[in-house]
């Protein structure tokens, strides 16, 4: 009796395991996406079921597996019928499955056993089919944390301004397609564009102060969704999984404005110094962002990100370095009278020290910049700026 029991176990075990493997529900399936084809339709009779071939090979199946009937409605347990097909590379059921590819009828029919072999219910060895091609996600995001570092963020719509910087982003993937994100960005280069400087030089025109406001840093929080994902092959060799990511957020950002571009200062004695460009603090502004891009995943834990984000910030320039128009008028009058600025009745936020004194290195008299600061706030301007930048970076998931 024991040998019979052992033999029965040996036969039954693989059949059960294969039924699980091809049944779909128990396949290790990371992510919310289905990792296997959807179950067949509920007992819908096929309008035109193909005639079974006259010489159909007998399927190798356990005795308890029901014999499929081409004329009958598709049974619930289609997976169980496919189970032995996975085990044996012999030709499978010729009966058309419920999820048969639509284009298969147009393509030349194949009789090759390997091309007819089903993988997870789909004839994936058949080059003429397109079913169930991207449902399987190799890497799941749900519940994962992700740190992204963007070494380079470059403004691509720089009409009056140019920005370049770096950014950090943290993402918590609450669900497979939805995540919370927080990010910070620092622009290590922010200046007016060559186009704006050309207008100043050639036609004495320039953008309004609010239109050429520069973003120094920004911090924001928001959400990220990944509505689409796909797979691609590079030159038929390398396979990669990618997601389309869309993000949005809100936060704050620090701004500044160019007061004076780089100039050459000629000191007493004819010595010439290059005076670097000077910027004035224009305060912290509300910041919002929308963006989209691709996340290309390599393995479980690494991904490349390429995104385009539009940083939208409100811009109103009525103070520079905390000084308003009245402050600048008072400073200018005091400069003309060679008066000490500390005796002036200025607004509390006015950082007048920035417009006083002489730079020991370049011999530049900062008082000469007062008139430039006043010009910026003489006509208070406001705008909503769109700073569209390209972000390239990588991320680590854990």
């Amino acid at each position: 009796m024991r040998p019979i029991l052992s033999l029965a176990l040996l036969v039954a075990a693989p059949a059960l395991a294969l039924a699980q493997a091809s049944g779909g529900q128990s396949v290790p399936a990371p992510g919310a996406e289905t990792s296997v084809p959807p179950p067949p339709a509920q007992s819908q009779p096929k309008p035109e079921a193909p005639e079974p071939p006259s010489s159909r090979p007998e399927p190798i199946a356990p005795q308890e597996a029901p014999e499929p009937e081409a004329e009958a409605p598709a049974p619930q347990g289609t997976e169980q019928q496919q189970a032995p097909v996975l085990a044996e590379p012999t030709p499978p059921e010729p009966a058309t499955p419920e999820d048969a590819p639509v284009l298969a009828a147009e393509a030349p029919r194949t009789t090759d056993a390997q091309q007819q072999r089903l993988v997870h219910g789909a004839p994936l060895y058949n080059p003429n089919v397109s079913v169930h091609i991207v449902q399987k996600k190799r890497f799941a995001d749900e519940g994962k944390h992700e740190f992204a570092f963007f070494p380079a963020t470059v403004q691509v719509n720089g009409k009056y301004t140019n920005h370049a910087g770096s950014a950090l982003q943290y993402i918590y993937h609450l669900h497979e397609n939805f995540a919370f994100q927080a990010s910070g960005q620092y622009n290590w280069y922010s200046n007016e564009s060559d186009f704006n400087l050309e207008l100043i030089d050639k036609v004495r025109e320039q953008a309004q102060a609010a239109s050429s406001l520069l973003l120094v840093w920004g911090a924001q929080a928001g959400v990220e969704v990944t509505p689409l994902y796909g797979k691609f092959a590079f030159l038929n060799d390398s396979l990669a999984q990618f997601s389309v990511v869309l993000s949005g957020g809100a936060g704050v950002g620090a701004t500044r404005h160019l007061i004076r571009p780089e100039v050459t200062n000629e000191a007493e004695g004819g010595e010439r110094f290059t005076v670097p460009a000077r910027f004035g603090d224009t305060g912290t502004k509300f910041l919002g962002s929308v963006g989209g891009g691709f996340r290309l995943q390599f393995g479980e834990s690494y991904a490349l990100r390429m995104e385009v984000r539009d940083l939208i910030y409100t811009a109103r320039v009525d103070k520079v370095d905390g000084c308003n128009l009245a402050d600048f008028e008072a400073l200018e009058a005091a400069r003309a009278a060679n008066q000490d600025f500390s005796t002036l009745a200025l607004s509390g936020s006015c950082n007048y020290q920035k417009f006083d004194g002489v730079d020991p290195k370049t011999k530049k008299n900062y008082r000469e910049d007062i008139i430039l600061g006043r010009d910026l706030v003489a006509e208070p301007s406001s705008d909503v700026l769109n700073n569209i930048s390209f972000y390239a970076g990588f991320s680590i998931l854990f």
Partner: protein
Amino acid sequence: MNARTLSVIASLAISLAAPVAAAQEDEQVLDNVVVRNRLFEPGGQLELSLGVGLPVQTHLTAHYFLNAGVAYNLFDTFAIEARAGYAASRHTGLARSISESFLNREDKQITDELEDLWEMNVHGVAGVRWAPIYGKLSLVSDLPAHFQAYVWAGGGLGSFQRNSVIQCTRVVDRELGICDDRSAPDDRGSANENYWAKETRVAPVVSAAVGFRFFVLGKHGVRLELRDWVFRDAYRVNLRREDWEAGRESGEPASSPGFTHLVQFDLGYTFSF
């Protein structure tokens, strides 16, 4: 536990492990097959395309492209293509504003022409398209989209015109910034002719693009691309107001004018034979 029981357990374990390994192999097959079995193989096919291009960014000029192209796919990943078309162009509002205000800025007697003012109109280019990436995108459940990602590079010729925003050869009203024959001062549209300095030329143009082609229903396709048209700029420097306002040629060509880039977002349709 005797030896016979151990052998039964071992056999059972092996029997259970085998299908799991087979399932893992199948998953690997699934991943490999999902994109290598290409439903669309354009190799050897002739292809016609139509497209419209919108400017990504405008400074002084704006261009709206209409292109037609014919391509032959030498391989699935490589094609040669010729495109021709017309770009409707105009000055932006900023350019018009500059031109009107500069008429009255007599404190600036000597200046240079502005860069990047050439407008491209008729053009034709030939190039190569390399599409090393073939992918499938899950739009919604069970609705895959097949696409190719490609880069494009080529060159050709274009006809160009340049309308100055600085050199008005016949000032009609300096304060109002009028340099044309408009019938009503505040109605720019009533003008039949303007007196801004004009130039035309035919010059080489280089174009490069990156984009996606989505296959739709076998022979049809939708193309999305970012395209840059590059051509050499040319403008004059050291212009004298008294000369240009008298209708005389002024200044000299810039020694290193650089290149103008027209970056477009193209939306196109392709049909494969």
